[in-house]
């Protein structure tokens, strides 16, 4: 066989993993009607074609994990609601993202947000009591530092313990 042939080899690897969950299993009944991509706002602007994602996942095409398309979804759940086969399309995409992350495909921009959370407890942190946001809070007659994890160091400790417990740092290649 010529080396440069780009032929698809079907595998049920991904669909089998998805089918562990009763809800996600519904992906197997996809009839490729195109409803999900028709209502997908992202599909109007980006290369995301949810219908194709479903097909690729079923066919076991590796590009479904390695490609950026699954990350173009804004999780608006339009596809989830409208799928005539009641496939939870959004949840399938989220699960595929989980699988992609496991294989090391994590968009760089997300790594910062993960760092924020694992260091401060907030995905969007205040940036310290002297930041401009703290000043804005003061201006609005609110406590300079909000009564969230920012005000409670012990809560942050708790967070670290839990992160260790689920071995998050070991599992997620964001650093």
């Amino acid at each position, binding site marked *: 066989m010529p080396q440069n042939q780009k032929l698809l080899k079907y595998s049920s690897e991904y669909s089998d993993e998805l089918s562990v969950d009763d809800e996600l299993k519904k992906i197997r009944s996809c*009839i*490729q*009607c*195109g*409803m999900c*991509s*028709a*209502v*997908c706002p992202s*599909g*109007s602007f980006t290369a995301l*074609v949810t*219908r*194709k994602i479903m097909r690729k996942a079923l066919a076991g095409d590796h590009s479904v994990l390695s490609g950026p398309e699954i990350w173009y979804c804004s999780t608006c759940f*339009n596809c989830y609601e*409208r799928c*005539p*086969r*009641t496939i939870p399309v959004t949840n399938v995409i989220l699960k595929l993202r989980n699988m992609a992350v496991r294989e090391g495909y994590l968009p760089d921009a997300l790594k910062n947000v993960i760092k924020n959370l694992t260091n401060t407890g907030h995905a969007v942190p205040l940036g310290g009591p002297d930041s401009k946001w703290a000043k804005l809070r003061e201006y609005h007659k609110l406590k300079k530092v909000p009564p969230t994890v920012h005000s409670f160091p012990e809560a942050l400790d708790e967070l670290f313990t839990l992160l260790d417990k689920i071995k998050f740092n070991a599992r997620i290649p964001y650093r």
Partner: protein
Amino acid sequence: MSLEKPKPRVAVYICHCGKNIADVIDMDEITEYAKHIPNVVSAKNYKFMCSNAGQDLIAEDLKSGKIDRVVVAACSPLMHEETYRRVLRENNFNEFFFEQANIREHASWVNLRDHKGAMDIAKDHVKMAVAKVSNDRPLIRQKVKVTQEALIVGAGITGMFAALDLANKYKVHLVERTPTIGGHMAQLDKTFPTMDCSACITTPKMVEVGRHPNINLLTYSEIENVDLNVGNFEVQVRKKSRRINHLICTGCGTCGEVCPITVPNEFDYNMGYRRAAYVPFPQAIPAQYTIDIKNCIECKLCVDACEVNAIDFNQEDEIIDLKVGSIIIATGNDIFDPSTLYCYGYQKYKNVLIAIEMERLLSSTGPTLGKVIKPSDHKTPKRIGFLQCVGSRDFHEGTHKYCSRVCCMYAIKQARQFKEKYPDSEVFIFYIDMRTFGKGYEEFYEIAAREYGINFIRGRIGDVFENNDGSLIIRGSDTLLAEKYEIEVDMLILSTAIEARKDADEVSRFFGVQFSEDGFFMEAHPKLKPVDSLSTGIFIAGTCQAPRDIPDAVAQAKAAASSADNFMFSGEVEIEPYYSMVQPEICSGCRSCVQLCPYDAISFDETTNTADINAIKCKGCGVCVASCPSNAIIQNHFTRNQILSEVRALKPWENYIKEN
């Protein structure tokens, strides 16, 4: 004659059912097991017990005189009980010395992966069947005379054809709810794939039905009550008052002309108008007028106008009692209402129509006399789109999982009609799969694309938006190109699903017919008894059974007519001898059973002071048996001993003990 009851000699036959059972349940193991059940003298297995060879196997053993009772462990008794009973009958054994153990539907098929579990169930079911058959008693089927008249409910194309077929031999009562016969087909303009004018085919048949001396046409009538005596159904029909005496009415139409009330015409799907005194459409049968009392203001202008004095506001509903031998249910279908599918904007945007509305617009007898116009500005649309599978093939609540079978074809038909009328227009059909499976259908589809230039776009529409001028923006995705599209059209037609009648449950209750999961009536067997219901003598045909097109509906009508004929022809019918009997020597005369019987089959004999059950009237439900405080009543074939022996045959603790 020996006083001692001879020991039953039971033979057990286990069916492989091809691989349906044998793949899950080990045939050798269960056969060996069966041999050790008390009373069993032989146990065999065979690939297909229901085949001729399988039946011969039983016949040979019966002839040999070694056995006298038969258990077949195979499919459901609802499927083949009759087959095996015939074998016994033909070999001069009483056919009720037979029991069927259901090891397919209730064991192998529901435990495809749990082989041990399926085996346990199968063993228990065989054991129960042996226990029951050992206590079986010979029974004789009673015969009842069958009334040589038929009732057909619903006078659409199915009901009409069934009526015409039967009327050559029998008196037929054809009951229709609306003021005219003809059903949905009368509303259609043309029919696929031949493009015949629907009215040209239907109306002559309607006239034939109207004139046939053997057809008693009861339009504007509804079933009031049914007494389900097999072979002699007693039916009450309410003939609703039309306020017009049909014997006198000439159908001249003067009353309609003077009537001041204008209401939307249901026949035109509320797009045209009619008066309160009306015929739904000019070719209606009967052609006489009806006064719609809901909308009538009783101004009585029509009374003065009618030259033959046919109008009678004192006319009352009439109850007609019928006695018929067989019943054909052909109540037809409803059409899915897509107004809850907000994304398509039906009833929100003026120019979104459903297909039956488009059909009336296209029809030369429709409200616009065949001119297609946009509801928004009454101009002819230039670009129209059809969306398929609206309400079909959809798993959400309120919609239907099944394919409605006809939508692909009627959409192509309407698209072609539209193109014929307006060759400059553009037509889009948005589909998931084009299902054009019938004779001449695929060719019809191909010509639509090649000769008519209809654009077929694979991919559902996601959203529809309305422009200020009433035109519509359709957004969807072309699944073959993997591109999203936005198309502007003047009108969007939704190819809506066929669904079961909303009041089908009422009909089912009247006639004791069952539903399938999809809401349509259930046939006795999906392949072998497609027009029989589970109730003897009652048949189902047309779209009340499942979505289907006209050729199929007519075929079913003829099948049902032939089945009904077959049923009535011999003049008598055998009924199951499952009726109950009172043992007068035990009966204490408490009369508690008399009140309980829903069929008034139990009478009380004052002279002997005991109850007595009329075997013909008794349907064999067994309510009286269960309630008799003296245990004086027995139900044939389901005696107390038999059921208790089945329960005792089960040894629930066996596994439990083994485990400990």
